[in-house]
């Protein structure tokens, strides 16, 4: 009997183990780029030799783009499928869309790429930093030859921005958005009520003196998010750079310069005098925006395309006012510049793609054509929105799935669209000319932005994340007065030594 029990128990465990591993030997379902492109192998030769005007054979492509990248950011699967259908029809492709939630986009992309299942087309966030990693790991395909067949892209995107996405002189992606920048937005009602007079480019002293008038007036004079990589706006007036920058053609540690110390001392003064938001270390982007449009704060640092948003949200919460820009602060030596983020996201084509030319066709249509941009920003007429009396109205389904029928979206993409083919609401139509003015003006105030090649220094690659964290930590300590500038920099120098910072710069400058 005991033997029988032993055998039965063992069988139970074995059955369970077998169930757990069931399917190991089975043919796996074909997914992802590698597999999806298998289906297209037979057509690859044909498509690569096709003339542009010859009808192209239908190919399968995988497209990895966040859930909010499909028609006015609506996340309803049926609405997303409508957009997919239009792209497929226009480019004669069979798209396998992988659309992870925006919040977990990078996690999923990294896993998918590391697993070797590289999608034909994928978007890379913080591209100026990450494109080097993607290229060095062999995920991206150099686009130099392909881009020659795409005047639709090269005529729209300035060569400087394409250069940002080059690794070892080879283009690894194309920008998804126009270059982004931030400046200070101020509430006019608070300024007027307190006699604050600031030009669009005041000096650091003027900014300090005028903003001081708001202290103790029941409003946060300047609200700032916890993201300290926004500090360059206050470094630029002093000729400092927040991170590894360039000077006279050589890479330098921009954070450890007399100018950077001066900039931090200035920000610390703003904080100490309660001009700077005392809660900034816990502020999300949403917090600072809400602070501003609701009137809790008098000013904040945000993207240039926020004007219509601030005006309409302020109206919604019954705190309407005009919003005015401060494009840059001028420092003691006349230097300045807004917070220039340059290229944020880029679209890449897989190094394993069997149909890169067709993948580029999809990008040309969806990202760089007027029709594609309208599709991306607004979705499909009749599904995402309707046009009645030439006025655009979102459908119920779209409205309930995060759809944004928002003119601001258009200011983020190439090409510039002036004729939408319909009218926005009366309020928005009134605000558009000013928003367009801000969009153009911000480009005249761009601060510096340096792209550091990640393949030049192993030390840099290894220490980049720790370096960024450390400068954020030291900056926050100095700003909040937990330590003096000298004490902060003493700690920083010890850190710099510990990561062999000089060796890192030497490698970068080799």
């Amino acid at each position: 009997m005991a033997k029988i029990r032993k055998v039965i128990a063992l069988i139970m465990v074995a059955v369970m183990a077998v169930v757990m591993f069931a399917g190991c030997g089975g043919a796996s379902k074909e997914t992802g780029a590698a597999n999806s492109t298998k289906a297209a192998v037979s057509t690859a030769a044909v498509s690569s030799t096709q003339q542009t005007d010859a009808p192209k054979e239908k190919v399968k492509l995988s497209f990895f783009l966040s859930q909010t990248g499909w028609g006015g950011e609506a996340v309803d699967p049926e609405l997303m499928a409508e957009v997919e259908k239009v792209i497929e029809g226009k480019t004669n492709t069979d798209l396998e869309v992988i659309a992870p939630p925006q919040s977990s986009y990078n996690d999923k992309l990294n896993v998918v790429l590391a697993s070797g299942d590289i999608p034909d087309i994928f978007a890379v966030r913080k591209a100026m930093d990450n494109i080097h990693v993607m290229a060095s790991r062999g995920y991206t395909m150099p686009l130099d030859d392909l881009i020659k067949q795409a005047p639709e892209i090269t005529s729209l995107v300035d060569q400087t921005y394409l250069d940002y996405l080059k690794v070892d002189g080879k283009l690894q992606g194309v920008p998804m958005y126009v270059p982004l920048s931030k400046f200070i937005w101020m509430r006019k009602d608070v300024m007027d009520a307190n006699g604050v007079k600031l030009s669009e480019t005041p000096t650091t002293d003027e900014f300090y003196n005028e903003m001081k008038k708001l202290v103790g007036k029941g409003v946060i004079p300047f609200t700032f998010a916890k993201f300290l990589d926004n500090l360059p706006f206050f470094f630029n007036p002093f000729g400092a750079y927040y991170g590894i920058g360039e000077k006279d053609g050589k890479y330098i540690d921009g954070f450890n310069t007399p100018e950077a110390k001066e900039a931090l001392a200035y920000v610390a003064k703003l904080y100490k005098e309660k001009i700077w938001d005392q809660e900034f270390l816990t502020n999300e982007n949403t917090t600072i925006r809400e602070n501003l449009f609701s009137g809790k704060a008098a000013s904040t640092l945000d993207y240039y395309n926020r004007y219509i948003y601030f005006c309409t949200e302020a109206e919604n919460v019954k705190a309407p006012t005009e919003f005015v820009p401060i494009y840059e602060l001028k420092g003691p030596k006349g230097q300045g510049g807004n917070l220039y983020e340059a290229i944020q996201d880029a679209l890449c084509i897989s190094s394993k793609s069997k149909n890169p030319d067709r993948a580029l066709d999809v990008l040309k249509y969806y990202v760089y054509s007027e029709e594609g941009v309208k599709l991306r920003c607004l979705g499909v007429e009749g599904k995402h929105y309707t046009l009645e009396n030439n006025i655009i109205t979102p459908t119920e389904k779209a409205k309930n799935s995060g759809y944004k029928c928002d003119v601001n979206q258009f200011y983020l993409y190439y090409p510039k669209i002036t004729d939408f083919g319909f009218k926005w609401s009366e309020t928005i139509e009134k605000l558009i000319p000013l928003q367009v003015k801000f969009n153009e003006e911000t480009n005249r105030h761009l601060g510096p932005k340096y792209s550091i090649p990640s393949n030049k220094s192993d030390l840099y690659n290894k220490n980049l994340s720790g370096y960024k964290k450390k400068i954020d930590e030291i900056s926050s300590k100095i700003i909040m007065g937990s330590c003096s500038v000298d004490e902060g920099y003493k700690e920083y120098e010890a850190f710099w030594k510990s990561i062999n910072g000089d060796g890192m710069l030497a490698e970068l400058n080799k």
Partner: protein
Amino acid sequence: MKNVGIGRRIFVLGNGLFLILVSMIVLIPLLLVVSTSISPDEVVARQGYVLIPKSITFANYFAIFNSGYMPAFYNSLFVTISATLFSMGMTLVMGYALAQKDLIFKNFLLRFVVATMVLDAGIIPFYLVVNKLGMIDSYLSLIIPSAISTYNLILMKNYMASIPESLMESARLDGCTELGILIKIVIPVSIPIIAAVTLFYAVSHWNTYLYVVMFINDSSKYTLQILLRQLIFQSESAISSASALNNFKMSVMIMTMLPVLILYPFIQRYFISGIMLGSVKG
């Protein structure tokens, strides 16, 4: 209370005050969340959080219900029920087998199982395995790979090991098969641990987020946690211009925890007792 001394009274009073304080610490944030979720947007934006709302609106809840909540809710429900059933089946069978004193290679198997608690290969190898099994974009990827939690398995095995051997011996003498013993004897006397472990599994599968993101590509298969996180993220998006009002986030929080909150009081007593019962014998 007549015969109770003054010291005892002060002690009881102190205890009461302390417990009230602790309850307030727990309750006030919860009340704030509820209150904010039913306050109008502009009131929260301008006046901040208040414990008692000045006016009430359920607009945010309607917005959630209209934003694909129900399909995602059904997806979550399907995954939770099927994954919990499968997990329980696996855990019961394996727990029973490992509880047998004379199981061949018992120690090896136990160590093998426990090793998975400390040796985690990480998400990329996990993804590769699921991909090779052909489970990407299938609910099977949410049900099978995470079928057994080692912690729950050990609780189950320990509880079953504490059942008197004589019960099973007498069943065998009466001619009962091993499967019969498991079904007719072991399961009926293991109800407390089964209830507790079922709850553990159900909560864990209900809250699954990472595996859904990693293994599911078709957004129509996304579960509630993904939808609600996405709604919050959309309102926080760095470059888009969605309105990001806290009351919407609070409503999302309530909706996320509501199903578990409703279920919890009914099986709460098993929650603690299950752990205690399972932990007696090692």
